């Protein structure tokens, strides 16, 4: 019997996550992922005006805000037979695009990098760069005061933490620069969407705002600054870390998993195609990309606190009947599967379906395997793809406006339908996102969301097959049980969003804490 390690809270993620691992001979032998907070957003939508779902589900998550709003609008439009005007599609792409280029660098620098940098090494910087000396003084002053929060305390740096003073100081300087850039990316999104987080412009049927030429130019100028930062700083840092100090982790494939990947397709283009293609990879076979078929999704509940009668349903028929004293169950999160397989979703899944040359060349040149480092690389490469696309969408926006067509909303389908069923299925920054709605008497009769972190952080299925994150932790080195830094590195590489993953709970039970193995 190995040693049980509990990490709760797992920080630098969105939401509340508890991870338990069993460690034997310095390696993870088994793992359990548990969400510890729920709000009940699907339940509160019942009986509400279907159009409110866009606003309410937008608030599922304040990090990837915009994605839920769009998927929800898409579900309502789908249920109503509404047709999204071209201008609205392009504007949504630009609003969301700005959010994605906010999200990916933020994940690398602010949520992940502190696992890979020994911040105290900054005090040993001996170079003459004025900018870096400024960073050194800033950090040294904090260290002298003994007030380096929130950079410390931390797990003890290990051999994979960058302690070279030049590299560490540069990384901290970029951490600070990236803080400024993510604020600017949100500002950029707000130009077209009112505010960020929680944009206001995307509503069922379209968008509420057509920007004028001056705003479009402002957006473009801000995109230029983001592009400069992403191309010359963010992507270069990911490559420098991944092929430098982290190369052993990358080549060992620490934090790998099943090799099953799924993409719903992200950012619709004018020809009905997607910028990020939908598709399925199974068993790490990158030579065979299967078509994605939404009908193959099922949600299982064997190890979730849900009644067995709700097992194995398609989300459009999804039910939520809780049984919190259920034997052996250990998570609020259901177990979604595709064709009976657990699937990893997110940037790596998208990029392995897409296989862009930049990523495949990098991976082949350095022998990088599927794992935590590969996830960071995929996130960087897809940011480059997105930047190029955003310039094309700005051109498309101007071309459409030139035609004199100002339609941004399907006003004929604004009043909710008497009844209907619809789905909004599209990629969010963290992976495959699905919203399903059923409308009766012009009100919401059923609402179900299956979100990226539900796929990744699912508990075991009926056969005991672990969820993708649980599986990815198997074999992760933990030389010091007091310092499970590799475990959090792997968890964070998935960019977890637990507020998304759990949106419903049983109100009449007090069994939650009985799953406690402290």
């Amino acid at each position: 019997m190995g040693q049980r390690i509990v990490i709760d809270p797992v920080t630098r993620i969105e939401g509340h996550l508890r991870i338990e691992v069993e460690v034997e001979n310095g390696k993870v032998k088994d793992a359990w992922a548990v969400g510890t907070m729920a709000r009940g957003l699907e339940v509160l939508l019942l009986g509400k005006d279907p159009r409110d779902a866009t606003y309410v589900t937008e608030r599922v998550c304040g990090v990837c805000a915009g994605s839920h709003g769009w998927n929800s609008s898409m579900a309502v439009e789908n249920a109503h037979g509404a047709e999204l005007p071209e201008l609205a599609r392009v504007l949504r792409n630009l609003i969301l695009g700005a959010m994605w280029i906010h999200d990916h660098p933020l994940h690398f620098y602010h949520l992940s990098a502190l696992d890979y940098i020994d911040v105290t090494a900054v005090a040993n910087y001996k170079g003459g760069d004025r900018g870096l000396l400024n960073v050194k003084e800033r950090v040294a002053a904090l260290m002298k005061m003994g007030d380096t929060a929130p950079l410390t305390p931390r797990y003890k740096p290990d051999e994979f933490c960058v302690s070279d003073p030049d590299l560490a100081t540069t990384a901290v300087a970029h951490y600070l620069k990236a803080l400024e850039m993510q604020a600017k990316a949100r500002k950029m999104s707000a130009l077209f969407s009112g505010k960020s987080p929680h944009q206001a412009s995307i509503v069922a049927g379209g968008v509420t705002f057509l920007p004028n030429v001056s705003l479009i130019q402002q957006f473009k100028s801000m995109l230029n600054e983001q592009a400069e930062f992403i191309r010359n700083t963010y992507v270069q840092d990911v490559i420098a870390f991944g092929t430098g100090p982290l190369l052993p982790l990358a080549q060992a494939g620490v934090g790998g998993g099943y090799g099953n990947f799924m993409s719903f397709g992200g950012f619709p283009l004018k020809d009905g195609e997607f910028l990020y293609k939908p598709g399925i990879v199974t068993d790490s076979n990158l030579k065979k990309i299967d078509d994605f078929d939404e009908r193959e999704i099922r949600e299982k509940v064997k190890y979730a606190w849900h009644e067995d009668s709700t097992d194995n349903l398609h989300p459009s028929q999804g039910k939520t009947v809780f049984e919190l004293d259920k034997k052996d169950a250990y998570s609020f999160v259901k177990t979604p599967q595709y064709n009976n397989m657990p699937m990893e979703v997110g940037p790596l899944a998208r990029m392995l379906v897409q296989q862009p040359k930049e990523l495949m060349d990098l991976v082949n040149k350095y022998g990088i395997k599927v794992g935590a480092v590969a996830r960071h690389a995929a996130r960087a490469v897809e940011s480059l793809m997105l930047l190029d696309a955003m310039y094309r969408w700005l051109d498309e926006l101007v071309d459409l406006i030139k035609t004199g067509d100002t339609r941004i909303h399907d006003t004929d389908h604004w009043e909710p339908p008497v009844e209907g069923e619809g789905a909004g299925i599209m990629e969010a920054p963290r992976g495959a996102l699905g919203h399903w709605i059923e409308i009766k008497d012009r009100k919401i009769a059923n609402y179900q969301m299956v979100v990226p972190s539900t796929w990744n952080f699912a508990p075991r299925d009926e056969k005991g097959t672990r969820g993708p994150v649980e599986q990815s932790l198997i074999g992760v080195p933990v030389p010091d049980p007091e310092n499970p830094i590799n475990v959090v590195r792997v968890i964070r590489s998935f960019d977890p969003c637990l507020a998304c993953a759990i949106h419903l709970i049983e109100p009449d039970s007090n069994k939650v804490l009985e799953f406690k193995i402290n």
Partner: protein
Amino acid sequence: MDLTTYLISKGVKRRDFIKLIGTTVAALGLSPEIHSPKIAEAVEAAAKKPPVIWLHAQDCTGCTCSLLSSFDPGPAEIVLDLLSIRYHETIMAASGHVSEEELHKTIEEGGYLLVVEGSIPTVDDKYMTIGGKTFSKILKESASRAAAIIALGSCAAYGGIPAAGPTGAVGVEEIVTDKPVINLPGCPIKPNWLIGTIMHYLMFKDIPALDEYKRPLAFYGTLLHDNCPRRGHFERGEFLEDWNDPEQSQYCLLLKGCKGPKVYTDCAQSFWNDGVNFCIGVGAPCAGCTQPEFYATGPQDSINRAGFAPLYVKQDSFKLPGLGGIDAKGIGKVVTGATVAGLGVHFGGKMVFGKKHNDEKDAAEEAKK
């Protein structure tokens, strides 16, 4: 007491202090001659940084993200120079037991600002746990030694959207009943609301003047409708009905469900994201996110608030211009002049105070006292 004051009280002069840190400066690989005075300045500044415990409950992290999208001060300045953020799950380096220990250490030291983001479940408080502890227990412990408590965002202030859900989600002041709570509602918050409130507290060691919903009047003291750029169209009876019509694009959004006539916020005077925009600016109706009525507080409420659902429909209680006018009185009613006793040394001054559930009569009586 900060470090500088402490050292001075012990008879350590600034010159000695600089000398004192010289050896450590040298150990850090810095030149003591050049860097000691600078570091002394930084130390003096750093010594005044207020410690902050930031708890996440039933939240979406949107308020944290919003604060980090601040300009002037920017996020790096806020995180490193302005505040000493000891516990904050989204940004802190530590995880698991290391973060738990930091939380407990900070609570023991006391005198910190407590910021709470997210609502608290009451149907069963076990629905929200961190480190195997229920959130309400963590909140009470953290509140016990806090110098000031800020309920950040609509969820922490009044329950917000989750209040309409099955968990019985409530705001902080329903759980922390023995200490004053400053409410900063909004979905999410606008950064200047939090930064301004903290700056006020640091400058005056006192809570800013609040309205009856415990919101600082400085930010929530004016009716959105009074300052709305589209007010002229409202008065002329020009209402947006079709977003596709460029002529209507700046018209009043009342028929699209805008709650502006009942919402107290400075959104129309101070825009979002470095001042570039706000909801109404893009033709989207105000959802009333700074009000206790947001989103769907039902008629069961003790003061019979109707709630703001549905969002995109004009509710009957919203009046068109002309005869009858706008029925906006009674919302955000301010009660002045009450001195609050027994709030501890930090809150010795006067503040505007009112109970959330007071009706006007009770409020008037309280004001006389």
